[in-house]
């Protein structure tokens, strides 16, 4: 515990750690010191002057956001002179502010509005002409209205310091000073929207959200982003079954306020015109809508028949569906259909990972560890593009704790900016690259190693052996692609005990039934079994769905409850934000098929309620005996799957290499993700051509 000092604020004695900023010390004790430019975690500006307070024995008012507390300090935050100063500053601020609140998106959640309401002058004495500048569009998602800007420089800092993108600057001088984008009239950046999110007023607004609604007219639903594997919590603003915006202003969850473009804007696929809203049955080369009962009858009949004559089933699950759905699906397949042919698109070698680390403790890094570790090594991943949150955690760690970053990658990555050392390697040369850093890494206090799909099988074991040989505490993250890739593996959507892999199923000419849930294996491969009966559950008519005999319209993650497990093995809860007519959750679809197949099957698979299935998961799945209250309250519960050897699996492990602007199949149906000029970009820096690009 660091040294503490005693001071008095507004007459009440306060203790604070030496060096704490007065504004923080006050807030920690429930005393509000107003501020615009001060923003926790970003550099100090002392520009807005809203935080001026009276400190006894100092002639001038003091700046609360930069003043460290000191022993015996006597502070007044509500004295007449302080109030008068705030009022004066707000009056100045409003002189060039358009006061167009009625037509401003920020209305109702504007810090300036609140501030004027609480501390401001009733009416302004300003009667001169205001500066005017027209609104500018900087990108499909970012609009800028200069007159509303109060120059708190939050956007510039969150972009430069927070994101490491450096896309925003300040131009001109004095009263015509204004925020400018990196390409004169437009932005070329991550399009993450953090600048919009952090803007205290309506200067930066979202192309998606603007003029749609008022904050108080929306329901705000906290759930988990359905795109990449990092599992950011996003609060969806919903109005009449339509998602209007995503942000995380309440800083809940593992990601604080952070979201990338996908989490913030990539929700519009839910309302895409091609969204399936009724079961479809193949008729000749085409499809026709059929009733649920009809579709279920056909599928159940087929399943029963094939099972009866001990035919061959193949089941391919999803990396986007919930743990409950994945668990239920593999149970259905194994126990009700009696097949071991179960798999999903494996994007990281979790099998070897879990096996190699089995029975060890403190070797799985949490999202939080990336912010506290003394050093981080990134191997074979363009982290800022493939794992935006993990990359953000690392950048913050460097900013706040001077952590050391090392990158061993095939091309330039953003991590290089902060890296203590970066090594460029050809595919296959990763371990050699890592070895070249041995000396530096062994000198670190502790280390987290994150690695992509290039590290699998033997090389994965070698990497862990390398970590062990360093003689410092090492934790690992095995990078996987999608919102529930980790869950799909943990729940057993894998060809254990001699089951067929995804590739084997597609190649088996004698497959009788292929049941594909929320996946699109036929996008990049053909189905050998010409006669196979194919059932697909999906949101859209994907390449795979087009080969199906029956297609069920499935609900997306934003339309269901249940749990998902992120890349660090942390379990979080989904909350349904909207309902899409005609679609059903995959879990319900499984249940209805079981029901249609008869009481026997129902008995084997059990009740299809998310909570019931989750209870069963906690009891039966290794490492999932997690705390219910934690996730029930929006928290993330760590899992501990390291118990018992895991036999090697057939089939391939390959990341789709999605960029910031692609995410499996979903991004194809997001107008917004496709509208930004950077989309889809490529990995290992957008500049570099011949990057892996997107496989989705």
């Amino acid at each position: 515990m660091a040294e503490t000092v005693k001071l008095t604020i507004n007459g009440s004695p306060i203790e604070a750690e030496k060096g704490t900023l007065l504004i923080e010390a006050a807030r920690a004790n429930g005393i509000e010191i107003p501020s615009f430019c001060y923003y926790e975690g970003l550099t100090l500006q002392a520009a807005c002057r809203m935080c001026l307070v009276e400190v006894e024995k100092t002639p001038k008012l003091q700046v609360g956001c930069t003043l460290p507390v000191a022993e015996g300090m006597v502070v007044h935050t509500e004295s007449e002179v302080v109030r008068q100063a705030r009022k004066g500053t707000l009056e100045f601020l409003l002189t060039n502010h358009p006061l167009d609140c009625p037509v401003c998106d920020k209305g109702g959640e504007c810090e300036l509005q609140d501030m004027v309401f609480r501390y401001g002058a009733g009416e302004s004495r300003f009667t001169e002409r205001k500066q005017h500048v027209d609104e500018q569009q900087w990108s499909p998602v970012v609009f800028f209205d200069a007159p509303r800007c109060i120059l708190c420089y939050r956007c510039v800092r969150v972009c430069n310091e927070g994101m490491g993108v450096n896309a925003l600057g300040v131009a001109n001088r004095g009263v015509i000073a204004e925020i400018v984008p990196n390409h004169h009239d437009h932005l070329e950046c991550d399009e993450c929207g953090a600048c919009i999110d952090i803007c205290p007023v309506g200067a930066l607004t979202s192309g998606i959200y603007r003029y749609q609604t008022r904050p108080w007219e929306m329901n705000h639903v906290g759930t988990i982003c359905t795109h990449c594997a990092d599992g950011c919590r996003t609060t969806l603003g919903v109005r009449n079954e339509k998602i209007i915006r995503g942000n995380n202003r309440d800083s809940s969850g593992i990601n604080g306020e952070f979201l990338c473009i996908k989490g913030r804007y990539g929700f519009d696929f839910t309302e895409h015109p091609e969204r399936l809203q009724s079961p479809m049955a193949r008729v000749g080369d085409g499809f026709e809508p059929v009733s649920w009962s009809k579709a279920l009858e056909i599928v159940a009949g087929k399943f029963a028949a094939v099972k009866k004559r001990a035919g061959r089933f193949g089941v391919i699950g999803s990396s986007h569906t919930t743990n409950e759905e994945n668990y239920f699906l593999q149970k259905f397949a194994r126990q009700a259909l009696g097949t071991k042919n179960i798999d999903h698109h494996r994007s990281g070698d979790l099998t070897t990972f879990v096996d190699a680390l089995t029975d060890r403790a403190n070797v799985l890094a949490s999202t939080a560890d990336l912010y506290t570790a003394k050093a981080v090594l990134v191997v074979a991943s363009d982290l800022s593009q493939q794992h935006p949150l993990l990359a953000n955690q690392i950048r913050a760690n460097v900013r706040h704790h001077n952590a050391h970053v090392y990158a061993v990658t095939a091309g330039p990555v953003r991590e290089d900016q902060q890296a203590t050392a970066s090594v460029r390697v050809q595919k296959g040369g990763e371990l050699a690259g890592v070895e070249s850093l041995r000396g530096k890494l062994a000198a670190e206090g502790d280390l987290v190693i994150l690695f992509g799909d290039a590290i699998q099988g033997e090389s994965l074991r070698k990497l862990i052996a390398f970590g062990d040989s360093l003689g410092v505490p090492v934790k690992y993250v095995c990078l996987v692609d999608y919102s529930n890739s980790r869950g799909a593996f943990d729940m057993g959507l894998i060809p254990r005990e001699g089951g067929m892999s995804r590739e084997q199923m597609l190649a088996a000419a004698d497959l009788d039934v292929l049941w594909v849930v929320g996946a699109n294996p036929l996008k990049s491969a053909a189905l050998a079994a010409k006669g196979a009966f194919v059932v697909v559950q999906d949101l859209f008519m994907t390449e795979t769905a087009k080969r199906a005999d029956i297609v069920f319209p499935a609900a997306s993650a934003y339309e269901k409850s249940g749990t998902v497990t992120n890349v660090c093995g942390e379990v979080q809860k989904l909350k349904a934000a909207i309902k899409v007519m005609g679609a059903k959750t995959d879990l319900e679809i499984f249940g209805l098929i079981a029901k249609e197949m008869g009481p026997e099957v129902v008995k084997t698979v059990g009740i299809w309620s998310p909570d019931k299935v989750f209870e069963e998961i906690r009891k039966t799945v290794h490492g999932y005996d997690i705390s219910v209250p934690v996730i029930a309250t929006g928290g993330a519960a760590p899992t501990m799957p390291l118990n018992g050897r895991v036999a090697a699996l057939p089939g391939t492990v390959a990341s789709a290499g999605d960029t910031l602007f692609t995410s499996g199949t979903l991004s194809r149906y997001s107008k917004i993700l496709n509208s930004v000029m950077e989309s889809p970009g490529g990995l290992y820096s957008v500049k570099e051509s011949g990057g892996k690009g997107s496989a989705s």
Partner: protein
Amino acid sequence: MPTKLYNEPSPLETRVLSKRFGLADSHTLDVYLANDGFKAFLKAHEMTPAQIIDEVKASALRGRGGAGFPTGLKWSFVPRTSPKPKYIVINADESEPGTCKDRLLMEYDPYQMIEGILIAGMAMDSHKGYLYIRGEYRYLLDHMDKVIAEAYSRGYLGKNIAGTGFDFDLYTHSGAGAYECGEETALLDSLEGKRGIPRMKPPFPAVAGAWASPTLLNNVETFSSIPVIIRDGGPAFAALGTPKNGGTRLVCISGHVNKPGVYELPLGFPMLKAIYEVAGGIPGGKKLKAVVPGGSSCPILKADECDIPMDYDTLAKIGSMLGSGGMVVLDETTDMVKFALRIMRFYAHESCGWCIPCREGTTWLRKILQRFDDGGGRHDDVALLGELSKNMLGRTFCALGDAAAMPTISIVDKFAADFEKRLAGSAKSQLVVV
């Protein structure tokens, strides 16, 4: 280089820093050497850093850039033993309206300044200096580049200076038009290639200045005062002025006087004597109305406040400042509304825009004054001007905000009558609807 002076000297001057002004080729090394040049440097070489700093302290020299901070004290703040390189930055931004002296010191006697810089270098264990000259002074940048080249070629810059074993490199650095870049920390940002935005203090430049290294930053005239202090001793320099206000300084007299010019006067020199005898009084026998004592940032003095000795403490006592030595004389015909407006136009134009009170305040004040001057004045404007200025005063990030507020407060306070007169004069004023 013409050695013709811009104005005739006055017999009432005490020419210490300017004693070589007017000598043929006074800017050359030979002329400098022939006139006591580098004696102080060689003497300082025999002294310990502490002795040098004590000598400067004893001289009661106070910063000539405007703030008037005791120079010796400032020198003692620089951590001589820091492992980081230490830098010396010379503030030649000379942008305070009414000020035009650093120009002459560099034009006529650049080696005096260089010698002062080198002495500071020895005291700080610093070996690199940057001469930040405002962009408008391009002829001086070229001039100083030539002088510096000569100094290198003759061994008075670079390695083993004058055989003392002391090394020092000096470079010129051009500004590009920004008053705020005269503020020491904004200057450092500008020197580092950024917008001239002032920095938070602490850390002070002495500890973390240019490129985050310990940095001594002084005005051209301050450095130019060092050689004589070391050569003749601090006390001798101090004795030229009044207690705690050592030496002489270049006073730039401008405005309504018969003989405007830059005159070297000892601190404590009577203001009225400067106006009426040194500068030859007010043209046409007009009456004195007001005086801006030390550059546009200083609160203005009414005629009846001007019977004072010109030193830092006296001016502070009567609520103004000695500032940068820019003394502007106003006769009875001066329109104080126009005068206040012109000052505020300047500060609004020069505000860097970083902090709200200055950015918005200066512009608002400018707009009110413009409207007032255009005949759209209202009775409550006068009070408003004062109140808004007070809402800036002491609340801005750097002193530019104060520099804009102080003269305005003093003008509307001391010359309210002028504003009232203008109101009465303008029939329009009652009609304006906004």
